[in-house]
């Protein structure tokens, strides 16, 4: 089957003065998928998204959004996309309703206003409140509403959950999933592995302006190590902890009641084994993005950075 790409990027290179931000980035995002663009701060995620919208111009590379070149057909690209900036700033002096109306007028799409009002209601967004009186979460809701109000074919979301509390984060992720279910292609950047793992179909990992890896969510899950510290009621010998699937024993304390493991992938085997042992408590730590990069480079023979 031939893949239809909503977004294609080849050899994208961008300089800011003498600083090179992107080094030949290649991406291909299929129609109707959620593509997570994972990378630490300053890795080039925002720069890539802003090139896709023709807000900044690259030095070299090929870009296609919905089949259009963003430089030659900038308006067509912006017509079919919904965008949520990483640092969302809204006109503080306007109220939600007038701001949404303004956005609807910019799109010359009156229908988008009624849908925006409907969305605002669903998100419990107070329409008559001034933007300056909204909480960070509610401002982000306005950002989501304006990005979705015209039923875009492609959503470009730059760290959509940044600075949100866990409940709002889950709500935003749910909205993104629903948009995908309606056929929208979603390209979203993040530096949080867990949320990318939760909703993305595929993941591109970018670091220092280069694509480090492009993997499926399953592969990310297997790369995604957890450090688990287990405390036992009584000492447990190492031979009882040997050969656990996906687990690597790291250390134990002097009394043998506290053991530390690295886990990658499914925890089923580990949990089954622990069920046979006198476990008092378990602490699990998610790895940082850097830990995942280290894993990627170990697998790759350190050759890609």
């Amino acid at each position, binding site marked *: 089957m031939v893949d239809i790409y909503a977004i294609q990027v080849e050899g994208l290179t961008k300089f800011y003065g*003498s600083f090179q931000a992107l080094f030949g980035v290649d991406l291909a995002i299929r129609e109707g998928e959620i593509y997570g663009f994972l990378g630490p701060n300053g890795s080039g995620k925002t720069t890539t998204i802003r090139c896709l919208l023709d*807000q900044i111009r690259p030095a070299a590379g090929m870009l296609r959004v919905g089949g259009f070149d963003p430089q030659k057909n900038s308006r067509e690209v912006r017509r079919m996309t919904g965008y949520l900036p990483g640092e*969302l700033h809204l006109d503080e002096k306007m109220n939600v309703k007038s701001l949404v109306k303004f956005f609807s007028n910019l799109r010359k799409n009156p229908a988008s206003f009624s849908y925006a009002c409907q969305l605002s209601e669903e998100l419990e967004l107070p329409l008559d409140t001034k933007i300056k009186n909204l909480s960070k979460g509610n401002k982000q809701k306005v950002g989501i509403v*304006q990005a979705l109000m015209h039923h875009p074919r492609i959503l470009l979301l730059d760290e959509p959950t940044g600075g949100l509390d866990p409940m709002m984060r889950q709500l935003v992720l749910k909205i993104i999933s629903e948009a995908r279910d309606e056929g929208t292609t979603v390209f979203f950047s993040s530096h949080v592995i867990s949320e990318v793992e939760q909703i993305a179909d595929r993941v591109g990992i970018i670091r220092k302006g280069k694509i480090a890896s492009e993997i499926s969510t399953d592969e990310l899950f297997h790369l995604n190590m957890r450090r688990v510290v287990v405390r036992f009621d009584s000492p447990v010998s190492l031979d009882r902890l040997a050969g656990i699937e996906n687990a690597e024993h790291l250390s134990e304390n002097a009394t043998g009641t506290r053991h530390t493991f690295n886990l990658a992938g499914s925890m089923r085997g580990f949990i089954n084994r622990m069920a046979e042992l006198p476990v008092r408590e378990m602490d699990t730590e998610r790895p940082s993005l850097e830990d995942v990069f280290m894993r990627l480079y170990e697998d790759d023979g350190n050759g890609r950075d």
Partner: protein
Amino acid sequence: MWTIFSYSIRKKSGIIIGWGIGLMLLGILLVSMYDMIIADSGIDFNQYMEMLPPEMMALFGGTADFSTPAGFLSMEYFSYLPLILGFVVVGQAGNLFVGLEEEGLLDLYLAYPVRRLNFFVGRVFAEFISLVLLLMMAYLGTAIPLEGSSMDIGYVELIGPFLSLFAILYCFFGVSVLLSLLMPSRGAGVTVSNLFLILSFFINGFSGVNENLEFFAKFSPFHYYQMAYNLVDGFNYEWFFGLVGVGLVCILITMVLFERRDIRVSGEGSWQFLSFLSKKAKRNSGAIN
């Protein structure tokens, strides 16, 4: 374009009303004062003016007869108004694109299917209309009390000094909006523009008493500003169109720069015009397919 225009003009309503009312009141006050201190008092106002240092005289319109309406209005109103309104215009020019960019709003607005050219024209046109409205209110302030005043000026005649004022403000607006795009930040653009405004005012003013400054005064927009003297000397169309032309050329250059500009996200800043000099930036300008 209309959406951007109406959005921009709505944002300016406070400035238009606030400054407009202030200028109206100033006009009413001054025209009313003319009779009180010049016509009815019997005092030779010129005698008092001659006691001022020549440098001060130069700044307030030179050696004209202050007892005439043209001399009085020039000294009391039109001599310093471009400086005061100039600061307003420079500030507004800084907000026009770079202010919006630094607030992080431009990034979002230009993600909508709006042509940059339309966005530019909508914003600049709103600024033009707000300046016209401001000056119309100022005109009304001086025109309304004319009926009961001994100033022998017709309503149509009075438009001349305001057109001259418009021309110089438009010139400063054009220069400022261009500088705002060339400088690394809004603050830097506004500072340099204000410096240009102040230097232009003083160099031109002092050139009347210092021959060494005469050459430099030719580069000052104030050199081509008639104040209210077109009431007696006739309207200088060359100066008017010259000032408006300079403003327009600056705006056209800004338009080209804006069309190709890398929109910054809030907080960034760079000498974008100097980046033309770097080889890497030259690579930025093309090579995309």
